[in-house]
């Protein structure tokens, strides 16, 4: 679908950097509005239909498909040519920081292998400062974003059920497809959690449970088999490569150039951007593209790096506020698991379902938090695991022979897991900046990350562990996770791949980089559409909100283009 890089030979209105959730949505919305777009994607061209191996057993893969530095999430994982490390494209860290930066480097970006959990942010999530005095409020509230959530859910295909809880908005009728039935371990966790006053609800998941016909990119309902992260040739899982990109392409208004590493925004007359410069990753040649507007959707880190490497040496572009690169957050992460004797040897049936969890535990302690009863601000949720298959080695006793075979049969389907994802509050010690000396193989200066969790995140994880263990104990479970201090069980910065906030939106140009439509305060034809614009990083997985804000920003940009505001 993409062509090899060369100088753009026909005029474009908008150049879009990146082809993931934000770039895909921008291309779709703008081309549908008649705007001529060019996508520049740093990674390689990628066609799930040709490349995804949905059905091969793990035993066909080297090392039984186990993750390695080459393929961190497993051999068959859809990530190609990218990951925690990219050849010749380093990043650095300040002394004492531990930060992992996931770079997908492929057409469609992370949507090819993402987590698919798509909760809506709620009213509190957009106004956190008003609630607890920490961080900043967003310049928009839930009501501003709600109509876009409605449309995005219908557009990408989301299944889920009602929630009916404080700060967990429900979708209007017609937005969601029916959720799948819960599995036995999920029902058991529900029973135990509910008995302790912890709510459990059907998760909102970006997987079709009903067909979604379309002339260009028809998508089929999930057939309840194969791991989603390998990619989905039937289009049940939302990924831009099987939906928004082919649809945008079909308008005749979109061109895509892959292996195009954008190095900087090029400035033109009257304080406006003239376009971008990119490096052909295959040949090392530099090219320039001119456009009436530039959309940055390269992912939080790369979008920020691009701006820092543009404009004024040492200050970057669109950085009059000095906030560019600041306010970096990632979700907190920790995993808890237990062996449940009552599940040992239970009757076998097909527990594949729609891939991931069917239900989850939303944050439930807003009232207690408001009364000052918690030692942390903001919330977390639990994603739920527990299915038939090979149990973790922690669930197996140190035995051999017939006893070991029996132990495996017993433990298969008898372990459950609760995975915590929590909000991080921006702090002054967590940011990214341009490394003063290190450059990548194209000569582009690289990012340097500084990262630190605060007491809020540490206390939150400690609280989450107590809650998870209380559920396990109610089930007479044997806890399998190591008894270490919360600092030692937390994931490293960036590890959850929810990095956000480094070009945050706001109402005041002095303390923010962009307005609520992603338009930079300093350059009115540069529009940011990815996670960099988030004013806070709620515990709710960010992709649905990235899509909703990208839709909103793209429609606004289309209006400005047609009204002559950018003439």
């Amino acid at each position, binding site marked *: 679908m993409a062509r090899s890089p060369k100088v753009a030979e026909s005029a474009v209105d908008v150049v879009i950097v990146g082809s993931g959730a934000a770039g895909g949505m921008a291309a779709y919305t703008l081309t549908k509005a008649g705007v001529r777009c060019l996508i520049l994607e740093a990674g390689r061209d990628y066609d799930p239909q040709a490349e995804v191996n949905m059905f*091969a057993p793990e035993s066909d893969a080297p090392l039984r498909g186990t993750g390695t530095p080459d393929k961190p999430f497993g051999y068959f994982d859809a990530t190609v040519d990218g990951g925690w490390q990219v050849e010749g494209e380093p990043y650095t860290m300040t002394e004492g920081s531990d930060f992992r930066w996931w770079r997908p480097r492929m057409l469609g970006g992370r949507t090819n292998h993402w987590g698919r959990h798509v909760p809506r942010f709620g009213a509190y999530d957009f106004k956190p400062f008003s609630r607890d005095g920490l961080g900043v409020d967003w310049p928009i509230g839930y009501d501003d974003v709600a109509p876009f959530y409605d449309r995005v859910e219908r557009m990408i295909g989301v299944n889920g059920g009602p929630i009916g809880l404080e700060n967990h908005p429900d979708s209007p009728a017609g937005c969601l497809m029916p959720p799948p039935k819960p599995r036995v371990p999920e*029902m058991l966790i529900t*029973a135990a959690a509910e008995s302790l006053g912890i709510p459990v609800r059907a998760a909102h998941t970006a997987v079709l449970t009903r067909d979604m016909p379309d002339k260009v990119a028809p998508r089929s309902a999930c057939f309840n088999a194969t791991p989603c992260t390998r990619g989905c040739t039937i289009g049940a899982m939302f990924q831009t490569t099987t939906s928004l990109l082919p649809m945008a392409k079909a308008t005749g208004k979109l061109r895509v150039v892959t292996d195009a590493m954008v190095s900087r925004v090029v400035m033109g007359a009257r304080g406006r951007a003239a376009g971008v410069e990119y490096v052909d990753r295959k040949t090392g040649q530099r090219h320039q593209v001119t456009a009436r507007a530039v959309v940055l959707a390269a992912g939080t880190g790369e979008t920020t790096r691009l701006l820092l490497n543009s404009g004024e040496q040492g200050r970057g572009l669109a950085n009059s506020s000095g906030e560019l690169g600041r306010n970096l957050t990632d979700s907190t992460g920790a995993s808890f698991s237990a062996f449940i004797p009552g599940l040992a040897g239970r009757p076998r049936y097909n527990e594949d379902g729609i891939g991931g969890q069917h239900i989850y535990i939303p944050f439930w302690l807003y009232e207690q938090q408001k009364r000052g009863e918690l030692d942390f601000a903001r919330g977390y949720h639990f994603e739920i695991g527990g299915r038939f298959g090979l149990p973790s080695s922690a669930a197996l006793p140190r035995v051999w022979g017939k006893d070991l075979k029996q132990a495996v049969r017993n433990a*298969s389907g008898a372990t459950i897991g609760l995975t915590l994802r929590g909000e991080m509050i921006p702090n002054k010690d967590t940011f990214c900046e341009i490394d003063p000396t290190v450059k990548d193989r194209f000569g582009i200066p690289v990012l340097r990350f500084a990262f630190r969790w605060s007491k809020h995140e540490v206390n939150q994880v400690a609280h989450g562990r107590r809650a998870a263990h209380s559920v396990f104990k109610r089930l007479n479970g044997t806890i399998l996770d*190591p008894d270490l201090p919360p600092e030692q069980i937390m994931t490293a910065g960036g590890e959850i791949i929810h990095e956000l906030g480094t070009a945050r939106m706001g109402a005041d140009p002095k303390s923010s980089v962009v307005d609520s439509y992603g338009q930079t305060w300093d350059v009115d034809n540069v529009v940011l559409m990815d996670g960099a614009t988030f004013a806070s990083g709620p515990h709710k997985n960010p992709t649905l909100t990235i899509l909703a804000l990208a839709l909103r920003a793209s429609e606004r940009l289309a209006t400005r283009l047609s009204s002559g505001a950018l003439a």
Partner: protein
Amino acid sequence: MTFTRRTTLQWLATATALSLANRGAAAAAAPQATGAPPPFKVVDWPASIAPMPATKGYGRDPDLTAPKVPWPLTLTKPQRATVDMLGDMILPADAASPGAGTLGVGAFIDEWISAPYPQQQADRAKVIAGLTWLDAQSRVLHGDAFTAATAAQRATLLDVLTVEVPSPAMAQPVAFMDRLRNLFVLGFYSLPEGKADMGYIGDQPTEGPYPGPTPEAQAHFATLLASLKLSMPSSSRA
């Protein structure tokens, strides 16, 4: 000097043994208690093992539709024979499935410890040293390599290698066996024969909404809830 398996089992019974219920959280935090030493002199853990020739992994962008192992296997014939034999002891043949050695899981172990990645190379150090130690210990006790020992003698050694709380001298040998055992579990249960042994049902496309638990699974669940004095969750009520 040879010890019978019976002597060892008596020793095992008197050594501090913890059930699974005490493993995990509690065990991981507490400083490791020291177990009783086995009733024989433990030979020294090998000081070093021969380095592996440099080789390449499959890279960040392998062809996922035609998976291949690009690195050469490195176990010697005698090492592979020992691994195969251990496989048939660790996961032996029974009515449900063949032994792991017979099924060829030894080839997977070889593939694993020959892979040029940090985790696999760390495991290689453990496994090769462990196999060397096993032969040395076997020679001291029985005058020959592990594969030449009687079934009872080999079983005795495996008992010693799976003691719940090892003595300091046995810490590394037990860690070796832990790793090898977990690799055998991974290699065996990811094969069709292993999945069948676990009674695994799945990997089958099913049109229409996910059917959910079978009546039998539902009934089992209802009984379990009652035994735990829990109510049927609201989401599963009709």
